[in-house]
């Protein structure tokens, strides 16, 4: 297993001359851009990890004249706060990434879907956007970006629910196919990327695919911004090269008493101490959108699990049966087991239910509820029961 150790990187927040990148982009063909992104090995930074270059390639291949670049800034995963920082510090690089994507797929319009709770950022972001639009005019780019605000629903971070929300409809995931690349927002071909992905794309165009792909491992190229929280003396935002083990991560950020790390937020996986050494943070091990929450021995993993399930029971859109009812059952189920009103073996039924949710739910939300459930119940069963 390829490993890289823990290395701090400064790509995402690096101050750059965006005009230079844009001018370079202006002179590149759609194909050149897509090839660069493909060669870099960049995968989506929102958590699902779809190869960005492929997404752009598919969207570029669509014949429609009207296409969209959507920036997913609905950062809602519990324990993730890196996109806020990126937007706060280097919004112009996000906009730059959108223009690059636009040039690649042949879109003239970009939409940033901003998490409702980040509304306070908007005045500053708009100011920067105005300057950015002027810059585009100067270079001769025909591309316009606008903002659309969410209203606090976690599900609206799911791409197709996000489109529905932009369209003014109820934020509910769509059936797939069709995928966004052929029918996204307003039914038009759309490439939707996470804030960090777009900045990474800008950096790849600036520094070249080769330099970028030297970071990270075969399955997880480049660097990643982590939101570190929980029982850590140094909470905050850190950009790290991909390819480290959880152990290496804990050595850096733990408080000496770390018993578990929740990688990837509520929808992610719980890694217990005994698995720190052999678990790589990345697509070959545990993938993450950036949320890293450390728990020390003072924490009850029942409370952790209960908190997540409570969250999901609230934030499921409620549309599909496995997710809507499954979340309620898991929540009520662990409560009953904890209180001794259900046998501890009932947890086995609940794990089976979590497995059904993983394969039968309509979207990524319901499909990922089982991740935390299974890993916490399997590794901390006694904490759930007693």
């Amino acid at each position: 297993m390829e490993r890289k150790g823990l290395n701090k990187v400064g790509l995402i927040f690096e101050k750059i001359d965006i005009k230079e990148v844009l001018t370079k982009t202006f002179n590149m063909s759609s194909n050149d851009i897509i090839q660069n992104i493909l060669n870099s090995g960049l995968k989506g930074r929102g958590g699902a990890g779809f190869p960005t270059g492929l997404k752009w390639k598919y969207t570029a291949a669509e014949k429609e004249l009207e296409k969209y670049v959507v920036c997913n800034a609905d950062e809602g995963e519990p324990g993730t706060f890196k996109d806020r920082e990126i937007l706060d510090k280097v919004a112009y690089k996000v906009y730059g990434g959108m223009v690059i994507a636009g040039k690649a797929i042949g879109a003239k319009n970009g939409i940033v879907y901003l998490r409702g709770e980040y509304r306070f950022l908007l005045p500053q972001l708009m100011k920067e956007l105005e300057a950015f639009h002027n810059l585009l005019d100067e270079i001769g780019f025909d591309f316009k970006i606008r903002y659309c605000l969410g209203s606090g629903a976690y599900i609206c971070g799911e791409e197709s629910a996000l489109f529905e929300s932009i369209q003014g409809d109820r934020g509910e995931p769509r059936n797939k196919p069709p995928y966004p690349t052929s029918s996204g927002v307003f039914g038009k071909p759309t490439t939707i990327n996470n804030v960090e992905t777009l900045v990474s794309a800008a950096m790849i165009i600036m520094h070249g695919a080769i330099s970028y792909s030297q970071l990270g491992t075969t399955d997880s190229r480049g660097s990643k911004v982590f939101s570190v929280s929980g029982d850590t003396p140094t909470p905050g935002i850190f950009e790290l090269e991909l390819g480290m083990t959880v152990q290496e991560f804990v050595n850096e950020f733990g408080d000496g008493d770390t018993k578990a790390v929740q990688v990837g937020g509520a929808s992610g996986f719980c890694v217990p101490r005994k698995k720190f050494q052999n678990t790589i943070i990345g697509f070959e091990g545990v993938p993450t959108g950036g949320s890293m929450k450390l728990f020390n021995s003072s924490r009850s993993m029942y409370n952790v699990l209960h908190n997540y399930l409570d969250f999901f029971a609230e934030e499921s859109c409620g549309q599909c049966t496995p997710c809507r009812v499954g979340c309620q059952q898991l929540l009520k189920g662990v409560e009953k087991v904890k209180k001794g009103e259900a046998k501890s073996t009932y947890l086995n039924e609940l794990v089976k239910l979590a497995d059904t949710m993983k394969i039968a739910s309509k979207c990524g939300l319901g499909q990922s509820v089982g991740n935390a459930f299974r890993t916490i119940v399997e590794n901390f069963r006694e904490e759930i029961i007693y």
Partner: protein
Amino acid sequence: MTINLNINDQKVSVPRGTTVLEAARKLNINIPTLCNHADLCVAGNCRVCVVEQKGARTLIAACAMPVSEGMDIYTNTLKVRNARKHIVELLLSEHRSDCTKCYKNQKCELQALANEFAFGDTIFLDLVEDHNYTIDRSSPSFIKDDSKCIRCQRCVRTCSELQYISAIAVSKKGSHQKISSFHNRPMSHVVCTNCGQCVNRCPTGALVEKTYIDQVWDAIYDTEKHVVVQTAPAVRVALGEDLGYDPGERVTGKMVTALKQLGIDSVLDTDFSADLTIMEEGTELLTRLKKALVDGDKNTVLPMFTSCSPGWIKFIEHKYPQFLPNLSTCKSPQQMFGALAKTFYAQKRHLDPSKIVSVSIMPCTAKKYEADRPEMRASGYKDIDFVLTTRELAVMIKQAGIDFRNLEPSRYDSVMGESTGAGVIFGATGGVMEAALRTAYEIVTGREVPFNNLNIIPARGMDGVKEATIKIEGCTGDWKFLEGVELKVAIAHGLTNANKVMKLVKSGKAAYHFIEIMACPGGCIGGGGQPIPTSMEIRKNRMKAIYSEDEHMVLRKSHENPEVIAIYKEFLGRPNSHLSHELLHTHYVERENY
């Protein structure tokens, strides 16, 4: 382009765009569904239809997944069965399963699935008490019981896609998600037309008609009371479906016999008052045309809209109140009948109108609302006491232990039991128009409508909006002013189509003279009170039966109905007379819209 795939190792070729569910049906492989409905867009949210696709990370929803070349689908693997069982159990855990007392007992799609997948020990915890479920009985037409709701959203899609109303929509999320009215107001206080299309498509007992079966039984057994029943034209071509017949079977004569066996004192026909409606409405149209075209009366507005469908009436009252003057002032056939039952009929039969209980059997839930409207008391009493749906009548027939299939057919009683083919076709979209044209054309020209065998084909069929132009030639006497006029008519069914026509009318782009609108898809044959299930195919079969009933009638023009001729002679005087206006016409009210 054809796509080849395998389902359960059987090869099948289907056109591109076909879903896995449809492909499986082609092989007669049954995949259970709940949220899926033939009339509605795909939702893919109940997940009961999940199947396994070789190589896929997750199961796929067969109803929502288009086929692709070389796909390998398995519909009955252990993985699929376990997931399906879980899903049905999950639905049951949120659902108040008081099945034996439920109106939909044995007609419930969830119950049928539970019977296949969820017998034995319950796996999951009961969540019913965790939800603050409410039962809304505020509508006179239907009951909305959230504790039976499985959130499949068929009703929501029906209301928005077919009816352009969205009286109900999804609100809140997660465990709080529910199908809600605007601001959670009672259904009686929102923009709802009571059409019952949602009721007709609800797979469980969450939406059911408000039933008046017991009240009708009470009246039947009350020796003081004289119970008269009228049956709407669309009932006779659909009732059979609830009694073991295939869609499209006409059971008119057996239905009359069954009603008599139930103990109804007089079994009469709404077709009679449909014929009467044609006389009143046809005269009204001709009068309006004269006022508008000859007298230049600015207060007379065209086009004139039909007013038979109470769902449509409520729609226009809410959505297009500025066009209320365009509505024919004629009451619906049900209400004309009601007003006459306690006046004319009572006189003829020497009955005390206060002792008459007037019951109508309707394909409709909105008729329950209509009967309750304060305007509908022209006789001095509530003109219609109880409205039963086709489904409720079937229940009564079963309750009475009647062997329906072996009944001898019988004829309607008299008076007000005589009808023509024109009255019959009221039950299908375009029927009122056709009936009106058969009569109006003949009044004006003295000749039959220039269509082969009186069949006005352009008015028929399932197109959402139909248009026709009829040139009037050879006018006689008073009607010379119509000579050479090209009468432009339009027909719409389903309120989404009605809305399309209304938008045209509003924009001034359509110069129609007369427009027929029915709230339900297919007209009354597809009414909210008709047997469940419904689909385009079923409605087409019922429609065929309606036209075949018409073809089998000796009299096929409303003005030839001998009882209609007689009632004008003996009682009403002439169409649109003072008494007609008192009893058979009404007015409308503007209602809120948001």
